[in-house]
């Protein structure tokens, strides 16, 4: 393998001498370019000089405007030479120089002469050059020749004209559109590539005329397509036609499907793959439609060409996201790819297998991955770790082997990003799978014993301080934490001191021992560590076994109800203009920028390839809770039960963009309207939302919190609170009007005028639905949880759901209606099954645990029947769930 590399090392010196461009300099080459002016042109010499110039440009050298002009004029002299090779270099050079409009005129006549030359190569290349440098007016002059060239007998000339047409369509569409007759003729060309280029141009000319595209596609599927490239193009057009046609899967055959399937038997691999990929990407593709495509992809998996294996795997990986069952046939082939030389392929194989695998194959898979992990790069390892995290959330029962795997790789060598991915995964698993907590925490403890990354150590210590005291035996973590105080750098020591104090504050029985440890920390040589230790010693009581006061806990460990970024800016401002007054923490703005709006503000940013579930919602919920509790009017509502995801109340791209988040309390709801003003010339003041709740009888408005000012592009929030019967899942529809005072803003100075005008803006309606009252909370072992709830609070009934598109569609409809967490991966319906059982869990308002077992059946006429069994701690709640389904 290393042979070519070794060879290179041996004769590197020699090789450097050989480079014809060694020590080449722009100035010298420009001097050399004088030979272009010689009356007796030496074609060979000139070619060499042009090559040198092109070499320099290729290396990133740039010519000044004057230099470029000089070179350009010199190069135009070379049209005198008849040498073919030199002429081609001249063409290349002119394209590279991209001359200005007044310069173009100089060469136009020479190029037009070449366009009518008898040498095919001259005609083709002159067209390409001229079209590259020309503008609209000149184009009209040469249009006649281009139209001729499109139907030229020589395929190279025709292709050159067609491809140039494709480029020109972007800048001069009205001219190129006039060529469609010639292009149409070229589509019938016997030359394979001419047909391809003509097809591409014709489609682009007609792309806005759906009927014409349909006709074009239909006629080509019946005729002959001569090149694989044209065939690929046709397949892409077909996919688009299918997407745009109002195809109804119940009505039977999908148009053109047969043609796509036929392409799977084409002799060119590029066509086979294009067709297979097109089939897998059909919307609502059925298993029957998928099967032939999956079969050819499976064959590709065992190809000797890495590109084919990679392409097939990448497609199967995407299929696995929506139709995991369809891909299981390929599992064996994919397993053998885990040891593929090409690490991109191996990683894709692993992540696909993790998606298609079922609970029983997890252990075997983990064994294979363990062998594989040692010899791949960190970036691939991160992908694998993320795939394992989502697998673990899907099969919580398997947490033991997956957690073991994570802890093993945590102990091995690796860079920061990789270790961080592992630690994040363990933290998420601990949060979401209660059974995994103790073992996960111990793994983290062991990791910080030998962790070279300060950031990760402090992160883990912080997490340990929050979770450790809640475990059955908090004392066993103390040793690990105190070891940090002895062995680590100051940052980690300070963080460990805080963690110790948290244990002391939360676990009364440990307090005396913690005090002993904290007293030792007072002699630390770092002042931050000493300060922290002193603070905790003085606030946590006298070191006896006694409960820590609530105020003290809140003071020391309560969350700061101010966004840290705001705090930072305020503090910086405070330091900048020194005053006698002490810093007032109440002056820090508490408004949090809404997360969804922040994301929307970054258009074009691709969604992260791997999702990080659970992490985001948790932090969003925290942020909401903090925001709401900072508003005195709502502080009396008690604990926030649930916050919905934002519901858009305006279309995208409107003057004001508004979405609403529904916050549910025991006997209140608060609507948080996130508003953004997208007009730079306006400042909105006193922004409120007038809510009409006449269609929501059980709700009565109790208060609003207007937004004082809403400048351009700075999101702000206004709130409206309603009272509702306690613990009752009241539903209803709310219509909304945004009311505000609008002031004109001078865009140059940014100052607003004094007088404003009252205005209103109609928003869309939204509803509070039953699902808003159920929290998605998973259970790790559904069977145990189900048994433990017992049959007392159980309610069973059967429902007919009528004709449905598919079983999967019916299942997801019911899941969305109830808003509960699917357990053990049962939300995925095997695509050919006629019956399915889905397990859901959640917390109903009033903190009542609810478990649901749904059994679905579908008959030949696509009629779906469902048996709904609900168990909960309170039979009224079970009834309520049935009511939701019955009324939904």
């Amino acid at each position, binding site marked *: 393998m290393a042979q*070519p*590399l070794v060879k*290179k090392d041996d004769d590197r010196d*020699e*090789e450097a001498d*050989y*480079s*014809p*461009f060694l020590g080449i300099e722009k100035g010298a080459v420009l001097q050399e370019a004088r030979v272009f002016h010689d009356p007796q042109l*030496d074609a*060979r*010499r000139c*070619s060499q000089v*042009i*090559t040198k110039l*092109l070499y320099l440009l*290729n*290396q*990133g050298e*740039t010519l000044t405007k004057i230099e470029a002009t000089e070179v350009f004029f010199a190069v135009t002299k070379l049209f005198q030479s008849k*040498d*073919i*090779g030199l002429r*081609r*270099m001249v063409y*290349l050079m002119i394209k590279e120089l991209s001359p200005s409009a007044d310069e173009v005129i100089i060469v136009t006549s020479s190029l037009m002469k070449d366009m009518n030359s008898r040498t095919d*190569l001259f005609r083709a290349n002159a067209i*390409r050059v001229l079209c590259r440098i020309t503008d609209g007016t000149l184009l009209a002059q040469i249009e006649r020749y281009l139209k001729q060239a499109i139907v030229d007998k020589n395929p*190279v000339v025709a*292709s*050159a004209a067609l*491809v140039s047409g*494709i*480029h020109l369509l972007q800048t001069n569409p009205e001219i190129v559109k006039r060529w469609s007759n010639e292009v149409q003729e070229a589509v019938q060309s016997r030359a394979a*590539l001419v047909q391809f280029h003509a097809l*591409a141009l014709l489609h682009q000319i007609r792309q806005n005329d759906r009927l014409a595209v349909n006709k074009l596609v239909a006629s080509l599927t019946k005729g002959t397509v001569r090149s*694989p*490239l044209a065939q*690929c*193009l046709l397949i*892409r*057009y077909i996919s*688009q036609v299918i997407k745009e046609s109002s195809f109804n899967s119940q009505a039977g055959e999908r148009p053109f499907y047969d043609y796509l399937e036929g392409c799977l038997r084409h002799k060119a*691999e*590029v066509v086979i*793959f*294009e067709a297979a*990929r097109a089939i897998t990407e059909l919307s609502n593709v059925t298993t029957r439609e998928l099967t032939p495509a999956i079969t050819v992809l499976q064959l590709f998996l065992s190809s*000797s*060409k*890495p*590109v*084919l294996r*990679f*392409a097939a795997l*990448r497609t199967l990986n995407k299929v696995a996201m929506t139709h995991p069952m369809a891909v299981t046939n390929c599992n064996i082939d994919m397993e053998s790819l885990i040891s593929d*030389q*090409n690490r*991109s392929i191996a990683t894709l194989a692993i992540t696909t297998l993790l998606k298609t695998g079922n609970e029983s194959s997890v252990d075997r898979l983990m064994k294979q991955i363990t062998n594989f992990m040692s010899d791949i790069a960190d970036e691939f390892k991160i992908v694998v770790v993320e795939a394992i995290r989502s697998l673990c959330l899907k099969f919580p029962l398997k947490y033991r082997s997956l957690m073991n795997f994570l802890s093993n790789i945590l102990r091995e060598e690796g860079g920061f990003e990789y270790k961080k991915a592992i630690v994040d995964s363990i933290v998420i698993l601990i949060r979401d799978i209660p059974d995994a907590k103790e073992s996960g925490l111990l793994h983290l403890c062991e990791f910080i014993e030998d962790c070279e990354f300060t950031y990760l150590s402090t992160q883990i210590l912080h997490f340990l301080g929050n979770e450790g005291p809640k475990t059955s035996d908090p004392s066993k973590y103390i040793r690990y934490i105190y070891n940090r105080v002895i062995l680590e750098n100051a940052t980690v020591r300070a963080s460990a001191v805080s963690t110790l104090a948290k244990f002391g504050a939360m676990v009364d029985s440990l307090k005396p021992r913690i005090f002993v440890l904290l007293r030792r920390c007072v002699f630390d040589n770092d002042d931050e560590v000493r300060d922290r230790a002193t603070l905790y010693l003085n606030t946590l009581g006298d070191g006896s076994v006694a409960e820590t006061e609530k105020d003290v806990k809140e003071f020391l460990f309560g969350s700061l109800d101010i966004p840290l970024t705001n705090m930072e800016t305020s503090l910086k401002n405070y330091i900048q203009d020194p005053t006698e007054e002490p810093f007032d923490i109440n002056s820090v703005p508490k408004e949090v920028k809404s997360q969804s709006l922040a994301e929307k503000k970054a258009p074009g940013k*691709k969604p992260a390839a791997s999702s990080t579930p659970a992490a985001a919602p948790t932090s969003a919920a925290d942020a909401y809770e903090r925001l709401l509790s900072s508003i005195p009017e709502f502080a009396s509502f008690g604990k926030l039960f649930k916050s919905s995801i934002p519901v858009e109340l305006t279309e995208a791209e409107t003057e004001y963009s508004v979405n609403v988040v529904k916050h549910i309390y025991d006997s209140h709801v608060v609507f948080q309207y996130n508003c953004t003003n997208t007009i730079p010339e306006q400042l909105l003041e006193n922004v409120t939302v007038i809510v009409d709740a006449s269609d929501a009888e059980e709700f009565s408005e109790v208060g609003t919190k207007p937004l004082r000012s809403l400048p351009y592009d700075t999101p702000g929030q206004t709130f409206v609170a309603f009272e509702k019967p306690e613990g009752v899942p009241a539903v209803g529809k709310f219509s909304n009007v945004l009311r505000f005072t609008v002031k004109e803003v001078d865009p140059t100075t940014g100052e607003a005028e004094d007088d404003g005008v009252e205005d209103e803006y109609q928003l869309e309606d939204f509803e509070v639905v039953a699902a808003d009252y159920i929290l998605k909370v998973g259970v790790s072992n559904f069977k145990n949880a189900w048994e433990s709830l017992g049959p007392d609070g159980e309610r069973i009934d059967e429902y007919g759901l009528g004709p449905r598109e598919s079983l999967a569609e019916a299942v997801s409809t019911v899941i969305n209606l109830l808003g509960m967490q699917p357990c053990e991966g049962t939300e995925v319906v095997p695509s050919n099954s006629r019956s399915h059982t889905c397990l859901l869990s959640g917390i109903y308002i009033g903190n009542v645990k609810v478990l649901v077992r749904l059994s679905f059946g579908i008959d030949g006429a696509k009629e779906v029947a469902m048996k709904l069994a609900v168990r909960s701690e309170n039979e009224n709640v079970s009834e309520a769930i049935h009511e939701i389904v019955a009324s939904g």
Partner: protein
Amino acid sequence: MDLCPSVKNILLLDSEGKRIAVKYYSDDWPTNSAKEAFEKAVFTKTQKTNARTEEIAMFESNIVVYKFVQDLHFYVTGGEDENEVFLATVLQGFFDAVDILLRGNVDKKEALENLDLILLCIDGIVDGGIVLEGDANSIASKVASHSIDSGAPFSEQTISQALATAREHLTRSLLK
């Protein structure tokens, strides 16, 4: 939306990642430093692989197919939704055409000495991202139709050309 299969760039680098010849067809890399950064990153990532046949990797939501022969590294880049097999055929066409043009001596020295042929070859394969010609023989024949005279027997060269060639050989051997 443009559905035409397209290429974002064609790169020919040496075994240290330095440019022999590159051509970009996409605005994804607007400046020379952006281009160089891309080349460096692609080179570093693929350097350790043994790509005697076409290999493939994903890179910054681009697909890169590549092939290494001697001290030359051939790359073709496409968007992440591009047909991988299509990119591989472009790469193959490029490589085979270079192989023909360099008469089987595919290495850095030969490539630099015939840089004009390499540049014309790249120019003949792709125009503005769209494949102009995929077949290696057709690509090479269009490039080589003129270069025949440089390889032609000495008797057919003019005296001055022959002298020039001789002078070149002499200076090279003296410099060595």
